[in-house]
């Protein structure tokens, strides 16, 4: 089989050259026998210590926000715009600072979740039920000990699954508006000799037929979403084995299947909607980490991913089937000769193919792509000043079964991070620069008539400067965290579809100029022993304007990017119950390149409220939670003519053993 052969040749041809590196790290353990402290577990970097904007939500915080998927959680971050097409099955993609969703990389337990076809990941597919934390980094972080792919995007969303110690079980059942039912089970066991395993299953079924009202000149279009149902099952098995502090192996098997309607936009006078999407995704990944000594460590990961989508469009008498394979191998070595100095060498390669069914073949050919990423990075701290530099080299080569093929691409991408911690304070001053690009996707390059194999990569550059603070004022204000970052940047050769009379064509036309500011504030307040209050607020100012040389819309804000947006959340913990309130707010946006009154899409507010209470039932804890979302029942759209649900409710019962 071709794929097996390719995979084999990949392993043989590309891992082999790296192998010498690995013994090197093992040997270096003998050389550097420094018995300095070994860091066990991953102490995550706090936002106020990071040289680049970093936002993190813990499992508890995610729960309090009343969101059920990673896309929902991302709406509470600053510096992002989340495109949400509404409903349980609606696509949710994240764009960082106006750069477009393809510039955002998603990592699931350290390994990239890719989509070579569209280049964007649907974050609505990642349930928060088994998430231990969600971290969002803009630019190149200080943590340089990571796979090369993490150097290769403008923004990274890191999803970390729960893997608690000991034996445990967590079961959740949930019922919500619009006939939405959900059940999930997470069970884990720890054995002696450092072996842990966990199993997770998550099932969702929703009719999603919520009502909406949309203005129609002198009347309204009042209706219910049709064909908005979804049934999805996600399963996951994790295994972790550690031998002392030297070796750690983590393995994961992941399976996802869903059947959903694609309701589409609300169309005047045409309530018919019949497009269906069937998706399957399986991947297995194995991750190995070896601590040779206090100064040298390495990690390697291997992932095989398969995803399949069947898109049936009865209205166009079309059925499209897409199969994607990805094989990903990475190896990262870190050498820390001194406490304040470290070097990282990281190599990653991944191989992607996209094939389609013969019937209604949507692609002009079967494209294959090999990407090789090599990163070198160094971090050095002198007193209270820390500097991180990295250089990434990317190489991509493609093959197609027939027709034209994009030429090989090679590019160096630098990044620089500087931070200063003034003496004796919780303050941090930071500045960073990152130059990165994204390759055109297989859709951009090879989608039948619209694909353009001559597309250039989309380049992005960003300069960030900010200040962060973390401290505790004592007394009732137990902790206060604050950050403010300003940025400017540019996206060049933005890839968009341009209209022709018969067909549209993907083309590099626009440049986008970016300037903005992100602010985050959070505080923990204690009212004696009786109650604790956590407040968090995020605000984004984002001016992302068309800056194309010959553009007729030069200076216009790019589509679906609000100038102002923000979020607010409050969580009150008392002995009786926990109360949560959250607010999402967005200013007006434009649905098209030209900013005129008729393309304006109004801003919105979405308030949610939750109450939860725990009961101890012998050794178990039972949690009941009631949530009301969009409590003011506002009709709003994030994407024009894709209405969001009005007021809706959710009841959850969780049993922790």
């Amino acid at each position, binding site marked *: 089989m071709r794929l097996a052969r390719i995979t084999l040749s990949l392993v043989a041809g590309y891992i082999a050259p790296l192998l010498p590196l690995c013994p090197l790290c093992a040997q270096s353990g003998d050389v550097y026998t420094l018995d300095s402290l070994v860091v066990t577990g991953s102490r995550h970097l706090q936002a106020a210590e990071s040289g680049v904007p970093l936002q993190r939500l813990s499992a508890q915080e995610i729960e309090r926000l009343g969101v059920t998927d990673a896309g929902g959680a991302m709406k509470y971050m600053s510096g992002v715009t989340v495109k949400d097409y509404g409903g349980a099955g609606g696509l949710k993609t994240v764009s960082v600072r106006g750069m477009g969703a393809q510039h955002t990389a998603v990592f699931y337990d350290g390994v990239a979740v890719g989509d070579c076809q569209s280049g964007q990941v649907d974050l609505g597919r990642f349930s928060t039920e088994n998430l231990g934390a969600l971290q969002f980094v803009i630019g190149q972080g200080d943590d340089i000990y990571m796979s090369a792919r993490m150097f290769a995007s403008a923004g990274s969303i890191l999803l970390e699954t729960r893997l608690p110690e000991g034996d445990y079980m967590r079961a959740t059942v949930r019922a919500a508006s619009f006939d939405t039912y959900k059940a999930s089970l997470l069970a884990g066991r720890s054995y002696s000799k450092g072996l842990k395993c966990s199993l997770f299953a998550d099932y969702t079924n929703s009719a999603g037929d919520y009502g909406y009202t949309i203005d129609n000149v002198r009347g309204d279009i009042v209706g219910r979403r049709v064909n908005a149902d979804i049934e999805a099952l996600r399963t996951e098995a994790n295994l972790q084995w550690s031998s002392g502090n030297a070796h750690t192996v983590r393995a994961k098997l992941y399976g996802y299947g869903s059947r959903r309607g694609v309701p589409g936009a609300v169309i005047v006078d045409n309530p018919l909607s019949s497009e269906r999407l069937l998706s399957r995704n399986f991947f297995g990944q194995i991750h190995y980490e070896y601590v040779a000594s206090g100064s040298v460590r390495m990690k390697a990961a291997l992932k095989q991913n398969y995803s399949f989508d069947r898109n049936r469009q009865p209205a166009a008498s079309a059925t499209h089937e897409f199969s994607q394979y990805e094989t990903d191998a990475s190896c990262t070595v870190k050498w820390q000769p001194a406490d304040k100095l470290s070097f990282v060498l990281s190599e990653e390669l991944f191989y992607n193919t996209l094939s389609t069914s013969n019937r209604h073949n949507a692609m002009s050919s079967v494209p294959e792509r090999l990407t090789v990423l090599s990163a070198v990075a160094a971090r050095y701290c002198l007193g209270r000043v820390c500097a991180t530099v990295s250089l990434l080299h990317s190489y991509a080569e493609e093959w197609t079964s027939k027709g034209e093929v994009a030429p090989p691409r090679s590019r160096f991408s630098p990044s620089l991070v500087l931070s200063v911690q003034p003496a004796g304070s919780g303050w941090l001053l930071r500045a960073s620069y990152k130059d990165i690009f994204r390759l055109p996707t297989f859709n951009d390059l090879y989608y039948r008539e619209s694909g353009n194999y001559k597309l250039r990569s989309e380049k992005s550059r960003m300069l960030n400067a900010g200040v962060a603070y973390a401290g505790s004022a004592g007394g009732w204000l137990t902790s206060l965290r604050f950050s403010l970052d300003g940025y400017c940047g540019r996206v060049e050769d933005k890839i968009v579809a341009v209209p022709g009379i018969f067909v549209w064509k993907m083309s590099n036309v626009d440049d986008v100029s970016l300037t903005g500011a992100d602010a985050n504030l959070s505080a923990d307040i204690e009212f004696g022993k009786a109650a604790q209050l956590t407040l968090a607020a995020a605000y984004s100012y984002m001016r992302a304007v068309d800056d194309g040389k010959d553009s007729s819309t030069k200076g216009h804000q790019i589509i679906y990017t609000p100038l102002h947006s923000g979020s607010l959340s409050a969580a009150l913990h008392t002995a009786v119950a926990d109360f949560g309130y959250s607010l999402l707010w967005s200013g007006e946006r434009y649905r098209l*390149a030209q900013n005129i009154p008729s393309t304006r899409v109004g801003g919105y507010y979405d308030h949610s409220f939750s109450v939860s209470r725990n009961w101890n039932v012998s050794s178990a804890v039972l949690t009941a939670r009631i949530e009301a979302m969009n409590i003011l029942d506002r009709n709003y759209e994030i994407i024009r003519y894709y209405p969001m649900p009005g007021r809706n409710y959710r009841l959850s019962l969780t049993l922790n053993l």
Partner: protein
Amino acid sequence: MPLKSLFLSAVCVFAGIALVSCSNDDDNAPGGAAPAASDGCYVLNNGNWGGNDASLQYYDYTTGLATAPDADANIFALQNGAMLGDLAQDMLWVEDKLFVSVSGSQKLEVLDEDGKRLREPYLYGGEGASPRMLATDGKYVYVTNYDGNVYVYSASTAEFVKTIAVGARPEGISCTNGVLVVNNSGDLYAYNGTVSVVDLNSGEKRDIQLVNPYTASVVCNGDVYIIDSGNYYDVPSTVYRVSVEEATVEALGFAASAIAAYEEKIYYVNNEWSYEVNNYVTSPLYVYDTVTGENVEVLPAEAMTNVNSLSVNPSNGDIYVGYTQYGVLGTMNVYSLTGEAKGTFTVGYYTTGAYFEN
């Protein structure tokens, strides 16, 4: 004059003046002359996919002004208090009525000459039953539909008459000498399109195998001229003359993306993707004489950049060229038949052309 006041109010809206101050057309006494073909023409805009921003505009020859293209302030919206819908495809102005096919909304609107609904729209409902292009013989209106049929309506009463089965995904249509010529674009991505020549008296249907005959179909000098768009790969677009009597086609030897007929001439322009310049490249506007076979350049290529539609006023030969860019309102330029600029105005998204009274 309802249309005149409407026109004024729409211009007011377009100029940013509050609608309330100038729109009270409901209070106006009916009557006055219906707009004569010599007063102006209609412009139809396709709109963005899923954007519900199809629109209908009126262009006044005397003032050189057009009504607003906005989805919620165009003639249709003002007259009917509702949006026209998603992806307007084609229209006809016949027997004091406007027939407008709206493909995304899967409906056919029947309006009076002021753009007011004469009846509830025909909704096609079925999966993929989108109405496409229109033709008339003055007595009936023929509408192609992606369900494989031509729907026939009475031009005088707008009543549905019958359907005529043609081929897969029919698009462009013309009617001449009691014969219907229908472009069947064929199955999706199959490039197995045909042209159906249907004798309306006998009902006999003869099919001609082509590649991808698309929306363009015009009558000129008793023949039908169509564009086969090719396969966008190794079969280029080609203009064919269809002989309705023989049911045969003849390639004219030039490529085009848009055509329009005037007297014994065919105006045409080609707009093709070029990998060399990595952009669309547009040809000059040419006119082909169907009698002599001569090709003459009317407008240079620079005047045709971003061309999206081509129409010719049958009464005086004025050329209407629609231009489009992604996400930006379009423009329409008016030229005399010899190519002198006569006017320019803003149109909606992806204008399908200017429409004149039949």
